[in-house]
């Protein structure tokens, strides 16, 4: 039960309608997993009453990176260079730490050309939601394998993939990412829950979403197809999200659930801890990922959560006024300061 009801059915807590969160019409292929994820972002931003004017949408290059044009039309968006969105995001967020950043990348963008920037973004703990729309294939260049394609996969033109897949969740975790999750575009409820939690996370929240490419990689043998995902998805954690403004009402027996207080005061409730594993345990998370990696299993859910590590913004000891809003008198030292300096040389 909410503490206060929204003013009407059509608007959220900040008085915006769902339409205020929509973007331009998608130019992606019909049925593309990425469009489903865009819809989830719209829903989540609306539900959480995020002010779209404070959001920045960032992306690199690829089909996935086109998608920020298709959601949150009242947010500033920037479509940068291949694999180099993380650096852009870091600069933008430090320039204005009041912004809420959503990055959308793909498996080509993150796992190949952008792996260096991805890992350094995680290392800095740049506060942002970083979504990888992962389909195992290069779409815009028409059907080459990406580094996340499973071993033994076959593609029409590319042939057989003989190399092991690169696991972006594992890479994020190894670099101390405080929010690592994997989901499936065909599982909208889970995507929404994880996105809500991601928006509440302190630092970099990485969500690797298997998002089938209906044109190049949705065939029978593909491990990144809708049918494969539906048949093989193994949810390793069951979580529910309670926004900061809502009260926790349902009581559970001791040991059944654990609550993780997120940085913004909302709560992430972890269920069925005993049957699965505890995503607050980094070594357990590494084990789960590594085992799934070895067996090529498709696990989803929240894999790791840790709200303790400070972000690059916090470590920069920044003024409360965003750097981008500084007035001249705040950033230009005085005439006297220059005169004093000159006497030192």
């Amino acid at each position: 039960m909410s503490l206060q009801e929204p003013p009407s059915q059509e608007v959220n807590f900040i008085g915006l309608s769902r339409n205020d969160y929509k973007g331009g019409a998608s130019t992606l292929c019909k049925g593309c997993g990425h469009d489903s994820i865009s819809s989830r972002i719209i829903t989540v931003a609306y539900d959480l009453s995020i002010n779209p004017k404070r959001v920045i949408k960032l992306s690199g290059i690829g089909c996935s990176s086109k998608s920020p044009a298709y959601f949150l039309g009242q947010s500033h968006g920037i479509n940068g260079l291949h694999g180099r969105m993380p650096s852009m995001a870091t600069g933008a967020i430090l320039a204005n730490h009041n912004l809420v950043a959503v990055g959308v990348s793909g498996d080509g963008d993150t796992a190949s050309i952008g792996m260096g920037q991805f890992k350094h973004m995680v290392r800095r703990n740049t506060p942002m939601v970083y979504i990888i729309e992962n389909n195992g294939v290069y779409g815009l260049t028409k059907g080459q394998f990406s580094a996340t394609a499973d071993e033994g996969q076959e593609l029409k033109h590319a042939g057989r993939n003989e190399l092991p897949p690169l696991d972006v969740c594992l890479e994020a975790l190894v670099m101390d990412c405080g929010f690592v999750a994997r989901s499936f575009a065909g599982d909208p409820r889970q995507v929404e829950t994880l996105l809500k939690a991601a928006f509440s996370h302190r630092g970099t929240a990485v969500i690797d979403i298997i998002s089938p490419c209906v044109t190049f990689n949705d065939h029978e043998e593909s491990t990144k197809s809708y049918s494969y995902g539906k048949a093989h998805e193994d949810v390793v954690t069951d979580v529910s999200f309670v926004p900061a403004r809502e009260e926790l009402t349902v009581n559970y027996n001791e040991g059944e659930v654990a609550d993780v207080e997120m940085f913004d005061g909302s709560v992430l409730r972890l269920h069925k801890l005993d049957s699965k594993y505890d995503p607050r345990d980094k070594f357990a998370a590494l084990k789960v990922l590594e085992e799934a990696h070895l067996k090529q299993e498709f696990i989803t859910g929240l894999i790791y959560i840790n709200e303790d590590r400070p972000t690059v913004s916090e470590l920069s000891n920044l003024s409360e006024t965003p750097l981008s809003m500084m007035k001249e008198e705040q950033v230009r030292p005085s005439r006297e300061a220059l005169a004093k300096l000159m006497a030192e040389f």
Partner: protein
Amino acid sequence: MSAVLEKRDDSLRTKVGVNNFSIIAATVNGSGSQTANAVITRALFKMGIPTSGKNLFPSNISGLPTWYIIRLSSEGFIARRETSEILVAMNRATAADDIAKVPAGGMVIYPTEWKITETRSDVTYYSLPVLQLAKSSGLTAKLLTYAANMVYVGALAELLGIEFAEIENALLHHFNGKRKPVDSNMAVVTAAAEYVRANIVKNDSFRVERMNMTQDMIQIDGNTASALGAIFGGVTFVAWYPITPSTSLVEELTHYAKALRMEPETKKATFAVVQAEDEIAAIGMLVGAGWAGARALTATSGPGIALMTEYAGYAYFTDIPLVVWDVTRMGPSTGMPTRVSQGDILTVYYLGHGDTRHIILLPANMEECFEFGWKSFDLAERLQTPVFVLSDLDLGMNTWMSQQFQYPDKPMDRGKVLTAEQLNELKTFNRYDDSADKDGVGPRTLPGTDSPYAAYFTRGSGHNSKAVYTEKPDEWEENLRRLARKHEFARTIVPSPVIDSVDGAEVGIIAYGSTDAAIAEARYRLNAIGLKTSYARLKALPVTQEALDFMRAYKRLYVVESNFDGQMAKVLMTEAPDCASRIVSISKCDGWSLSSEWIAASILEKEQQ
């Protein structure tokens, strides 16, 4: 050139005399000679003698040869000279070569321990028991090599007449007023001076005496000057990757920002500095920060510029302001990364893919390093584009004397940024529409602006005047025409060249950057033998109307620069094709900064053809 130089030897060279000669200290890098050299340079400067210090060092931490040249000039010239009359030989490995290069009449100081044969009869030798004297510092064996360098400071002070009080002041300055290191170093200086008094009969004519040519001036390096300029320019965001010779720019910036740019009450920073994983990320961060409204800066050198290429072009086409300091060096890769070159002009001017022409500022001295430090942000934000400031290793890392820096003479120009109030009144926003001013610059909004009209989507190519996705040929071409308008507008607001028009001169010299000091001297010497020259020193690209007028006024245009291909000459030929046949490139690229003798001789040689 050497034949001409030899013929014109006397007229084109400095006349050696009191306060008018050069000292070269040949040392091993990592031996701590920097302190000794800095102390001598500052002591002479504080005696009122125009002085400059140039460090020729290897890309190495310890064990390779290093030379430091201190020039004193009673005429006020501070460029590098071809010869140094006084050699302080402290590196056994290069000693034979070093001694061979000393001109006749010169002086050689070397350690007695070497037991070398004094084979040249046309130079004066003085030997010093360096190790024995160094021990008078009382320092441990580990630090003795550092102290050894102070032996030549003491010896030179005694032999030349450098005031000991100024040596001590310089040491205090160097050690930030810490008495202990000053005392131990001063003990060596005194011991060496006493040794010279007791054991050496001065048999040369080199000496210095106090004069009054540096009053109210400062001694500084270009990277520090640039860093201070950026701080007074309101820099708010810095991302960088360490690379010689630009590293000290960001290090000094960070150092001074911590003193000058913390909020007094909260002790919070009004700036952020991020050491990036590489130059690609560094400029990526600038793009994000510039887009979001910060005054964003990076400092790098040629290899970093190469890596920044794609985002530089992206920022150009998306109208994102940022400032890149390129402290140029020899390229590519390693081998001579610690040697100077002005070799990035062509690369930087056109950096990117697609039709790009960037704004380049060309500081020539310490005051301009400071001035462009702040002015670059005003230009970048007014023009909504990357601004490249091309300093170089000679400016950036060597010690120059300078007038004191002038406080910015105008308020910060943040350019065309629409506020939420303005947007709500306008009820429309066309990001790349410059129809109001026809200056190629549209209004921009910053992320976070609280208006439903504020948002726009930024992408590299394929955007129309409303920043809406398009692949329509006419819409994209209009964008390119707009960028061309911007370039033409930039031509009217970038700094104009410094022009010295001389009556009766048929020769026009064009140069830029660190060669300025050498050109001033070369023109002085050429004038003395009857060759009048006019001079335009470019401070920016694109060239302004004043520069074009200058080019059209002279029969012969000598474009002097420190690279092999004559890169600026090539740019000028395309900027002013009607002048192309009159442009003659005078260029050299050997790792040293250009000397006045070489410039004068080269121009003379061309004139005699």
